[in-house]
């Protein structure tokens, strides 16, 4: 299924991104890039701006300055459906599924971005083209369901599923969008150990077998250090460190941001940040 990850894909480049809500600077001058075919993790304490960053990249927020490039193309001004179409899929921190629909319907909606038919086509679109498209779709749905081991719940309404399974349905829906970049907002938040391990396995397989570039926000340091190739650390809306997981683990700034360095150190860091802002 690596067929939808183009071999010469240039990844995602975020340069000098800033976002302010009134006087609050959620992001200031964030620059980093997401290498194609790799897993990039964004970490940082609560309120560091990770979800704001995600919302900028997926088009829900409009950054005040800066540029987002997808495969070398500037997408900063595109609206979310257009980004979905070029191959940017995301999941949400608080699961956002279509309640009242079944698992399969939810996954099918992931295909919506790539469907072109209008009302007349839908009413009179019969014959071979239609059959081929249906086959393609059912093939994709089957592969997604098989891959995420959820064939047994395909016709269940999503409202009846456990938290971990609903997270998995969200991942399935994002995969059905045939993304080139998959954005996961806290994919294992609130999961037990077994569910976390399953999800880690799925994420790795998405990267390796489907060839999808992954950008994720995650608090579970064990998972981040295990599976990511590149880690970006945000604090107070700024990138304070970026590098391989091992480098990040030993970076003094990161340790300060996470653990604090006594009251005085924490306070001076905050003051420095506010002055800079």
């Amino acid at each position, binding site marked *: 299924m690596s067929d939808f990850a183009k071999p010469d894909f240039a990844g995602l480049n975020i340069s000098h991104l800033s976002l302010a809500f009134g006087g609050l600077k959620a992001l200031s001058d964030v620059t980093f890039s997401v290498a194609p075919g790799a897993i990039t993790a964004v970490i940082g304490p609560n309120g560091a701006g990770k979800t704001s960053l995600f919302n900028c990249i*997926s088009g*829900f927020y409009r950054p005040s300055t800066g540029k987002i490039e997808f495969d070398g193309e500037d997408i900063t001004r595109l*609206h*979310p*459906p257009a980004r*979905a*179409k070029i191959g940017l*899929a*995301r999941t*949400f921190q608080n699961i*956002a*599924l*279509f*309640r*009242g*629909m079944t698992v399969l319907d939810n996954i099918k*909606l*992931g295909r*919506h*971005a*790539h*469907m072109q*038919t*209008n*009302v007349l086509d*839908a*009413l009179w679109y019969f014959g071979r083209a239609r059959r081929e498209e249906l086959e393609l779709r059912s093939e994709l749905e089957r592969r997604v369901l098989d891959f995420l081991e959820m064939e047994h719940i395909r016709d269940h309404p999503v*409202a009846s599923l456990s938290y971990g399974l609903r997270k998995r349905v969200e991942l399935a*829906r994002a995969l059905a*969008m045939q993304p080139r970049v998959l954005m996961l907002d806290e994919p294992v938040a609130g999961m037990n150990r077994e569910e976390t391990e399953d999800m880690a396995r799925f994420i790795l397989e998405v990267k390796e077998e489907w060839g999808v570039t992954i950008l994720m926000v995650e608090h579970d340091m064990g998972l981040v250090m295990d599976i990511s190739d590149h880690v970006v650390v945000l604090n107070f809306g700024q990138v304070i460190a970026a590098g391989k997981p091992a480098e990040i683990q030993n970076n003094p700034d990161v340790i300060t941001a996470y653990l604090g360095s006594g009251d005085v150190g924490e306070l001076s860091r905050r003051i420095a940040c506010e002055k800079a802002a």
Partner: protein
Amino acid sequence: MDWLFLIEVVLSGLGSGALFALTGIAFVLIYKATKVINLAVGEMLMLCAYFFFGLTTALALPVWLAIILTVIGGGILGGVVERALIRPMLGESPISVFMVTVGLSSVLIGFVELVWGGDPRTLPNFLPTKPVFIGDAYVSPKIAVCFLVASLLIAGFLLVFRKWRGGVALRATAADQGAAFSCGINVPAVFSISWIVAGMATAGSGILIGSIGGISPSMGVFGLTVLVAVIVGGLDSIAGVLVAGLAIGVIEALVGTYLGGEFKLFVTFVTLIIAMMIRPYGLFGTIEIERL
């Protein structure tokens, strides 16, 4: 008991019930897409009826052309209201948006009174006058035509929303706007189209209602009864509004005939209270489950 008479009353109730259902579709579409309870549906319907009146009398256009233009006008009205009044209120508290629609209904009444005055008018009669019999039961020809037209329009809406991707987009938007947006569904377009189609539905029912009972600036009160049907059916359920609309129509006809016209609204709202006590989310409404 005169069974034939009872059947006639029920049939005429079904006739007005079809109009409730048609107008109710406007409420449901708007609520599903934008989560707004649009109290101005009745007044939009009234404005469309007056628009039709103006086209056929002042401009003396043929009826068929006036109908087409009125339906287009209703669509434009819906689209403009969404874009100019509702879209800027996105993210505000639901009660504020609700109040905007209340204000809108007053503005529309005022506008119509300014242009056409406050007196009731009659629309040119274009409906057949030959009595219709179903078996032995007599049905007023106007009511019969209204029932037929409303049913056809409703069937059309249902077909489009089942077959067209837009129907799926509407359901997805109703379930989760953020997720729909990120799945490639153009949510703002869903908002606009829902309001436009709702406006067209109000235009259709405005013409039908006006040609049965005449038009007046206060005919928007009809919207209140429709709102009852919509709430009983479940605010976000098209099937619900069809069933409840027909039921309320029949109940009103029965009550109006056997108890007297002054009991109509009373019984309608008692129905609402009872329905809410038994099924708080309406007959077919989505039950909001909060998982803790």
